[in-house]
């Protein structure tokens, strides 16, 4: 018996995974960078306080 597969299901699954994975990595890296730079700036300003 021959299995019938809808190719579009596979195309859409690959696009959802590829786009979702890439965007998640971009957002995660951006948030990590913003957080780390804020902590560095906070430690710099804390040093200036008497």
């Amino acid at each position, binding site marked *: 018996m021959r299995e019938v*597969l809808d*190719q*579009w299901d*596979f*195309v859409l*699954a*690959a*696009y959802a*995974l*590829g*786009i979702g*994975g*890439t965007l998640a*990595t*971009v957002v995660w*890296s*951006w948030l*990590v*960078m913003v*957080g*780390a*730079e804020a*902590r*560095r700036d906070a*430690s*710099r300003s804390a*040093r200036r306080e008497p």
Partner: protein
Amino acid sequence: MHGYANPKRFLSLARWMTPLFLAAGLVLVAVALVWGLLVVSPDRLMGETVRILFLHVPFAWLGMGGWSALAIASLVFLVWRHPLAALAARGIAVPGAVFTALCLATGSIWGRPTWGTWWVWDGRLTSMLVLLFLYMAYIALAQAAAREGISARIPAIFGLLGAINIPIINRSVVWWNSLHQPPSITMGKSAIDGEYLTPLLVSTLGFSLLFGGIVLARMRALLAETQAEARLRRRALEVA
């Protein structure tokens, strides 16, 4: 080149390059994927699944290119001791691992309707899986080295040794029998029809810019953490 190893000079460049790379990458990827999904016609042999290649090929290229860049950064760190080179290698590792995993996942999704199977243990797929494990081992090793204060030379040597896998991945479809097709693009030549090649190149350029933006963001985060930690240590010494 050595001048850019200065953290201040690196930051002055990275501050405007990070958003520029990410924004340009997002625009190009959006254009290429809409083009690949809605404009190009189905392939004679692959049918609609040809559209998956506009994601899979850039992921494969960046997974392999990422480790090549990681190995070069490791070599620069070992030879010239530039601390920014070690940060660059660490910054490359996470997006490299993510893109390699996405390459394997999208390849597997493409393989099911095209080859009739999700996975085969052939040379190309197995060596790509080995690359993912190498990335994971490098991330664990680099984090342990940073946390425990062990020399950063150990992950750098690992990064250099792992580069042995890159020519193996590249030549695997030539050396061994494989379901995977032989290289479609070689130096100056392409076996891909222009209708598919143009969106593929746009997609590869877009994902490469995104990869570059992610690496810069992660390098900036690592540099900021190192600077904050050094400042806290100095202050603790002053108090004591």
